[in-house]
């Protein structure tokens, strides 16, 4: 396959996507063993969105997303150790055992969470971009949400103000076709979600989310536009989650054939095929990557297992910045 993207990019995409997949397969297993509790929403199948995005943005650009956040968090640079420890609720987790699966954050990596109220982060993303524009930074904010959130009122309020104020934000709808168990076609007459941008004169595009290249190209264009003060873009990235909405969802609302159709376009297999066709790696090189990823995931489990839970006195910490806040304790 001819591609303008080189060996280095493809090997990066392959290894990153494999890490996200193996990390989450392990998380799924550990959930079954009740090592991980609470809600747990896996990103498996959607990895090309995270990988294609990472080569299109700068390290200091911002990402905010919903509760299906493990993949994006690791891609943005939060370590598998910190992420697995967070899933375990341990003090060494990326949010000290306070956020859990749905609320990964890192100030250093400019990862603004991890949010659990469907669509709430669309407006927050516009606000994060507002602050960078206000402070005269040239950072861009990627505000992610799902096809379910596209039906929330806040999307419209945020799109309107983002355009009005020309904010440096890229809104991305990861359309995995199901809002929990409800298909896109059962929630609106408008099936092409990217067309919602038309009402606000916002540039928009529909993107193949199973291809790192397509994701990269679309986000690269949008980020350039935002950074050059051209304002927001809305991208609908069509993707698919292989697993249910959360761990308790057997996904009976869709057919096996539909799932298989997407698995045939699996982004990791696609990337690997391109690598092999271009002779960018030997079988042994790929084995070495696979082993490295497995080792990272295994190590993250060991790290999480060996880490302590937060101390009980963390209960009243991080509620206020104010260290002297007089909590009601009886």
């Amino acid at each position, binding site marked *: 396959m001819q591609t303008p993207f080189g060996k280095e990019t493809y090997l990066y995409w392959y290894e990153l996507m494999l890490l996200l997949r193996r990390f989450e397969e392990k998380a799924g297993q550990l959930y079954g063993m009740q090592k991980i509790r609470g809600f747990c929403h896996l990103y498996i199948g959607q990895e090309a969105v995270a990988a294609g995005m990472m080569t299109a943005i700068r390290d200091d650009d911002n990402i905010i997303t919903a509760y299906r956040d493990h993949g994006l968090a690791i891609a943005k640079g939060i370590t598998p150790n910190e992420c697995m420890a967070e899933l375990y609720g341990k003090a060494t987790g990326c949010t000290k055992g306070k956020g859990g699966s749905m609320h990964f954050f890192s100030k250093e990596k400019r990862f603004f969470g991890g949010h659990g109220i469907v669509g709430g982060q669309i407006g927050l993303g*516009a606000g994060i971009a507002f602050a960078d524009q206000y402070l005269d930074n040239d950072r861009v904010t990627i505000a992610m949400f799902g096809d379910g959130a596209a039906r929330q009122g806040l999307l419209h309020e945020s799109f309107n*103000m983002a355009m009005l104020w020309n904010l440096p934000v890229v809104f991305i709808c990861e359309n995995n076709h199901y809002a929990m168990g409800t298909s896109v076609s059962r929630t609106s007459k408008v099936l092409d979600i990217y067309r919602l941008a038309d009402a606000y004169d916002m540039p928009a595009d529909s993107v193949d989310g199973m291809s790192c290249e397509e994701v990269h190209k679309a986000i690269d264009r949008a980020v350039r536009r935002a950074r050059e003060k051209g304002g927001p873009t809305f991208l609908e990235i069509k993707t698919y989650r292989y697993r249910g909405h959360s761990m308790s969802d057997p996904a009976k609302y869709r057919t096996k054939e539909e799932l298989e159709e997407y698995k045939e376009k699996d982004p990791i297999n696609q990337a690997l095929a391109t690598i092999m066709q271009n002779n960018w790696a030997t079988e042994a090189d790929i084995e070495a990557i696979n082993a490295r990823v497995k080792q990272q995931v295994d190590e993250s489990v060991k790290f999480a297992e060996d880490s302590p839970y937060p101390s009980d006195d963390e209960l009243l910490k991080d509620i206020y910045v104010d260290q002297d806040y007089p909590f009601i304790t009886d």
Partner: protein
Amino acid sequence: MRTIPFRQALREAMEEEMRRDSRVFLMGEEVAQYNGAYKVSQGMLDEFGPKRVLDTPIAELGFAAIGVGAAANGTRPIIEFMTWNFAVLALDQILNHAAKMLSMSGGHFSCPIVFRGPNGSAGQLGAQHSQAFESWFANIPGIKVISVSNPYDAKGLLKAAIRDEDPVVFMESEVMYGDVGEVPEEEYILPIGKADVKREGTDVTIVSFNKMMKVALGAAEELAKEGISAEVIDLRTIRPLDWQTIVTSVRKTNRLVIVEEQWPFSSISSEISYRIQKEAFDYLDAPIRRICSADANMHYAPNLVAAFLPDISKTVKLVKDVMYQIK
């Protein structure tokens, strides 16, 4: 000392803080070109320009969200709601995002933001424009709630709120914006979380806040004519609640009446009553009593508005009741 209107005190607080810190900006409906629905922000667009004084569309949830996101990313927004009645559209952003940003992120992101605007009833405005929300917001860990009764407190506490590192809900009143009060020329800041004894007395303690302070002080005046000495406390901050000041007073007066515009169920008086029975049980010579708004929606007719709200005569009567002067 000079005297200025309430709205000017609020404006001076915002102007001084915006001159001091370029990260502070004001956003809301009609705050810029229209000079504020209640003229609180009059002239601020001229001084600070459209970058720092921003008119928004009528989209409370949306501009609250932009404020919260901007606060998490290095700025210090002041979000004006035309009234707190409209702010319920933004409750998700205040409750689920601003109040939880610090804890959910394990301390990574704070949210130094002020949500401010008028609260409570303001005449015959009907059911949807007449609600007092202190008890709603005071229930939420992660935010602070201030509700002011006079220009001096308004200025000193709004400056403190803008400088605070945590999200602050700041409540004013449409019917007080024209009230004139003493406010010094020189800069001052008042501490959040400190009540103020506005009138000293020995027979009964009356606790109130926001515009119901007028009822509390008016009742104390009436009671004085009948030889009853009421101590009147203005809470000023609702969360955290300065209950120690109330306990100190009750230990002296042995009686407590609370006057507030909240609905009665799970109100601020409910919380105070719990705290005082626990901390000063042996000092109470009568049950703690309160006057809230009616446990109903406010209607339009003037007599029904009057019947809905606490007033001086109801307060005087209740104080006499706890003094055991009514047979």
